[in-house]
């Protein structure tokens, strides 16, 4: 039973750790499927995290915080759009710039407003998203196997966790079952076809980026208002890049994205769990090695195990009408 409990605990933290990855990954999916590469997921999450925690602590409302996180993140997404869609700038450069602006401005504004070394004040209970306890948890808690799974894995997460996982079928539905999704996928493959069909390529790509902004906003809010009780500088810690890796790993498909993010989340959870725990045969493994494990595996997976990942054909290329 001990091992079982440990497994449930690891899976539980897998879910928690994969949520920001999943939201960011789906965010990237919208923009990349529309043909706009977005290396600025990291930055948008970071401003979202900061705006969310700051607004929540000032207005004492978790939902206002979430709203502000989404708003600011969308603004940054639109800046990326302005540079790379309207002005046909290089999408990678624009994304990197956004990451820098996000890293610098959050610390600067945080220090200016709250004087806590770039942090936001610790969030009080009503200012963050609390875990939701599902009905009947206490009744089944002691039932073997099903009990812990229900009470630990399924119940007891914040609303944002459920939203993140519901976004998977929702995103699939949007992409493959709606007019907007058809056009979005088309514009990522052949924008000229979209243009000649009488649809504005720019406006379509902007809308895709707005979707990206909303999701990175939620991802940021999750980091600062669920996982942590406030904003800490550089708290995204490369999650935006891991999400991009997961996106490629998932071949730009929503359901694959979920499994990819769960895998990365699992590696992360495992590395935390195994820190300081001596392994059989190997003995005690340095903490740094365990922390590096998810990243090492990312490189290995991306290098050799995903087969042929075909990105959207018009990805990264600003649309210019050709003669």
């Amino acid at each position: 039973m001990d091992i079982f409990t440990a497994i449930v605990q690891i899976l539980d933290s897998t879910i928690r750790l994969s949520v920001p990855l999943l939201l960011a990954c789906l965010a990237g999916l919208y923009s990349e499927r529309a043909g706009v590469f977005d290396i600025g997921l990291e930055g948008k999450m970071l401003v979202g995290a900061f705006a969310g925690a700051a607004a929540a602590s000032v207005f004492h409302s978790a939902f206002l915080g979430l709203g502000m996180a989404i708003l600011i993140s969308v603004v940054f997404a639109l800046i990326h759009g302005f540079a790379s869609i309207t002005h046909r700038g290089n999408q990678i450069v624009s994304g990197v710039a956004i990451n820098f602006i996000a890293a610098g401005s959050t610390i600067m504004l945080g220090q200016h407003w709250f004087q806590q070394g770039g942090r936001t004040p610790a969030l009080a209970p009503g200012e963050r998203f609390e875990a939701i306890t599902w009905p009947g948890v206490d009744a089944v808690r002691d039932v073997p196997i099903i009990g812990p799974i229900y009470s630990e894995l399924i119940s007891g997460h914040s609303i944002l966790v459920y939203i993140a996982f519901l976004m998977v079928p929702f995103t699939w539905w949007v992409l493959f079952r709606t007019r907007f999704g058809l056009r979005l996928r088309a514009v990522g493959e052949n924008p000229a076809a979209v243009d000649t069909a009488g649809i504005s390529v720019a406006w379509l790509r902007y809308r895709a980026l707005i979707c990206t902004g909303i999701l990175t906003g939620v991802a940021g809010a999750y980091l600062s208002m669920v996982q942590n009780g406030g904003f800490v500088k550089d708290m995204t810690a490369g999650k935006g890049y891991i999400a991009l890796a997961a996106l490629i790993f998932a071949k730009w498909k929503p359901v694959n994205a979920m499994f990819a993010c769960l895998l990365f989340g699992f590696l992360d959870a495992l590395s935390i769990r195994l820190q300081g725990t001596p392994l059989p045969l190997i003995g005690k493994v340095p903490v740094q090695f365990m922390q590096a494990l998810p990243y090492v595996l990312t490189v290995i997976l991306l290098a050799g195990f995903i087969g042929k990942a075909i990105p959207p054909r018009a990805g990264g290329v600003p649309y210019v009408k050709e003669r």
Partner: protein
Amino acid sequence: MAQAAIELIGINKSFGAVRANRDINLEIVRGTIHGIVGENGAGKSTLMSILYGFYQADSGEIRVGGQPASIKTPNDAIALGIGMVHQHFMLVDNFSVLENVILGAESDALLKKSIAKARSELERLEREYGLEVDPDAIIEELPVGLQQRVEILKALYRGAEILILDEPTGVLTPAEADHLFRILKQLKEQGKTVVLITHKLREIMAITDTVSVMRQGTMVATRETKKTTVEELAELMVGRRVLLRVEKGEAEAGGVKLAVKNLTVKDSRGVTMVDDVSFDLRAGEIVGIAGVAGNGQSELLEAISGIRHAVSGSVMLDGRPIDLTGKADPGELRDRGLAHVPEDRHHVGLVLAFEENENSILGYHDDPRYLKGPLLNIEAIRNDAKDKITKYDIRPADCRLKTANFSGGNQQKIVLAREMEQDPGVLIVGQPTRGVDVGAIEFIHKRLIAMRDQGKAVLVVSVELDEIRSLSDRILVMFAGRIVGERGPEATEGELGLLMAGVEQREAAE
């Protein structure tokens, strides 16, 4: 009194220093088929793109049905009942036919309803105009002829009253072209107006009611088709007399350069595309492979040039086998004297974002002639490109220009110049004059025959039966992946047409 469907008055359009359209006036009568002919770069496509709202004219007026119209986007054009079939198809390659048809014209925010509606509408259009195509097929798996049907269906689905076709037969076989013409005639009978942009004079004579000729951005003449001749139109287009059929002497075939034996190729779905094909290609002869597009010619060409995996069989180049696993090193094949002009110059033959001079050595860039130690010898490359530009009359004559800015015919000349000037022993050419104008066709044909006369082996795959007959010393006809017959150049079009349609030789003789 005949009413004008479209009037263009004083249209001007410049791209930078290039004046693509100068003071164009044109009136197209409702319910007619109007041809616009001109060489590549004469400004035909630009003019029609202005009409379709893809570009804005710098000055001038457009009237549709007698009313002044402001066409700022393709949407405006679609709303006015103007549909366009582009030369380079505007299709999303990994979407299904249905998805492509409804894109931008979805009847509902949810796809299910839009697709259901489009499916029944498509069935109706298919019946009415004989435009059969599997609505669930993925575009990239369809041969180009069918892809074009999808483009026409797209326009009709949007309720086009005026249909503009830009070089529609460039990719079609005679049979497909005839089918297209029947469709166009049906459209005309129903009161629709068809504008046909082409440089093929035969088509103009066969199908149009009136024809306008463009040269270097100006409209030089408009004629009633009945009252003009091919010779007159050709002269108006080019500004000089042109030979429509190239003279050539007897072939002096030498030893076998390329031997194809029992070659079988399957596509990604496992469908047999090339079925047990054997033939020899000798030095000093041109062998033409005729066939309706999609009967395995493309796959055969790709397998021989080492870029497509063959399931079985062998190809010997000068007595040594070519790697048919699809992993052959094209550089090695080049070194062995096999040059390949691919059918699809946009995707395979050129890097459109490169400068002309870069494309003109692409694949031969490690030749010592173009190198200075480990570095590229830019000066040598540019001089070499300039020579080719002069020799092949590539226009504009600017080796620093981005390749995307050349017209289709000139892009083709860039590829041909690159491959032919390497003096290969075997030259494999797919669709040598697709999208190329009359003057240039004459030139390319002369070059191919000159290569033959130098003792090179030339394999030509073309869907242009005229081209095959005028060039080839031997004609192989492909149908459903097999070579169904071999004929001499004296074979009639009708005889070859029957073979291409899969009618057995014996039946054909009777």
